[in-house]
């Protein structure tokens, strides 16, 4: 099966970043990393492709920068990447992004499209469903386990109280939660090989789409900070302070 995995390069979450209060844009550094959630999607995609003699194509929208995050996924074993970069896409919302990704994915034939349930930086969590609707395929969402058998994709879908088993014929879109599989680490050979793998950087003109949206950020402000409380070193008796707080809160 041929698998498309939607991937996103994001600023390193370990380094704080924010929306500019004036422009309302996120200033993206040149060196962006692969969204951690996507490593799980890439791993699942590779497993399906390996079992069925297919291949994995990465599809990503956003400033290409040094392509560090994309190369990370190529080093894991994806065959090639399509990156859509266009100044008109700065500050794009999920609806805009879905229209762009759908146009890119439709240029080739895929049996399975995989995406994370949500990105770590934006975390709107509706893009994969928008994409599935545009592609006209079922969306198997919140998969914590995925298997394929004779052209049927079966997942365990997380619910608030447990999980459902859901199955679907292909073509299909699957969203994965992190922690579903153990993402492989790129080997030295993989890292060297990734440098030669094709990365097709294209613009909106190449796709022939000019997506629009109808929402606008009107204000950005810092969230009120919680007053930080008392921090003490445990000298063996700190549990007594916990008891006092529990008493004050009237829970004991």
């Amino acid at each position, binding site marked *: 099966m041929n698998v498309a995995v939607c991937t996103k390069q994001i600023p390193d979450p370990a380094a704080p970043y*924010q*929306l500019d209060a004036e422009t309302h844009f996120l200033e993206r550094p040149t060196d962006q990393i692969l969204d951690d959630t996507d490593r799980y999607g890439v791993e699942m995609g590779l497993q399906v492709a390996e079992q069925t003699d297919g291949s994995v194509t990465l599809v990503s929208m956003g400033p290409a920068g040094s392509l560090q995050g994309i190369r990370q996924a190529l080093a894991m074993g994806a065959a090639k990447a399509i990156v859509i970069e266009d100044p008109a896409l700065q500050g794009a919302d*999920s*609806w805009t992004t879905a229209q762009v990704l759908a146009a890119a994915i439709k240029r080739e034939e895929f049996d399975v499209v995989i995406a994370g349930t*949500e990105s770590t930086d*934006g*975390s*709107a*969590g*509706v*893009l*994969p*469903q*928008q994409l*599935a*609707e545009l592609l*006209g*395929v*079922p*969306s*198997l969402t919140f998969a914590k386990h995925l298997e394929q058998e004779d052209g049927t994709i079966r997942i365990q879908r*997380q*619910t*608030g*109280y*447990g*999980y*459902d*088993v*859901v199955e*679907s*014929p292909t073509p*299909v879109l699957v969203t994965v939660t992190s*922690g579903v599989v153990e993402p492989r680490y790129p080997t030295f050979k993989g890292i060297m090989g990734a440098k030669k793998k094709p990365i097709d950087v294209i613009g909106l003109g190449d796709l022939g789409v000019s997506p629009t949206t*109808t*929402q*606008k*950020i*009107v*204000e*950005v*402000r*810092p*969230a009120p900070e*919680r007053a*930080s*409380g008392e*921090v*003490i*070193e*445990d000298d*063996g008796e*700190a*549990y007594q*302070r*916990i*008891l006092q707080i529990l008493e004050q*809160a009237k*829970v*004991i």
Partner: protein
Amino acid sequence: MKVWVFIEESQGEPAPIGLELLTKARALTEAPAVAYLGNGSDEAFAQLGSYGAATIYHIPTNDHLPSAAGAAALATLAETYDPDVIMFGLTPTDRDVAGRLSARMGLPVISNGIDVLIDGESVTVTSEIFGGSQIVETAFTGKTPHLVVLRPKSFPAEPGGQTTPTVETVGLPDVGHAGAAIVTESHVEEREGPQLEDASVVVSAGRGMGSAENLSLTQRLAELLEAAQGATRAVVDAGWVPYSLQIGQTGKIVKPDVYIACGISGAMQHAVGMKDSKVIIAINKDEEAPIFALCDLGIVGDVNKVLPKLIEALEARK
């Protein structure tokens, strides 16, 4: 303003977040309507009436995953009755339906909201982004319905505006291949003791607990305090506890009276799910851990030494 709330049936009842959103809808409009996805029952509809639902559009489900056909049914309803706002919860099925409806109608969704403001014709959504470090106000600038996805626990669920709702049942349309996914099994993970969403005390375990075996400590503490047990994504990913205990951006959102974070560093993704707890107590051996900036009482120390003493003291008081 016509305000609708999309509510999914969960284990035979309206999903709890649906009642939170319906309470909010009542504050925004006089006669909120509910689009209800599920088997439906007189009890469920009466409950929605006790929260002020004037009209219920009932979309019955079958063994297919309902997102695609449910979104199509909702699109037809929206085209017929022309609501201004449709509110959804940040839950798996709500997100599925909201996303698909958005693409079907060519409209944006504003997600991750914590509040909705209606001022004349303008609809604005307040969201917390980047783990709650910034607040963003986003306005809709195009045609209705405006689709909003709101986080659980953004509003309290309070009955009021008692009605006997009108119920209109609409069928699930055939959406072809997009609706081909079938639910073949449903598993309920049994949980003992208070449920996370409504417990007044939550004892939560992070990677700093060291091992799955050490979770017997947080479990015992939870028993003694009649608390619900929670966990971080790292602990769920490690397979120590099921996903249904996960607290954070991709898990549950809790606001208990007391939250006890055991061996939790307080990463952004976790903080989003618990930072609005009334009192936060944290035990962690790394004094630089971000959780200490959030808590009311922080203990810098070995959680596996502090907890046994705390447990012993609580047992002695029983």
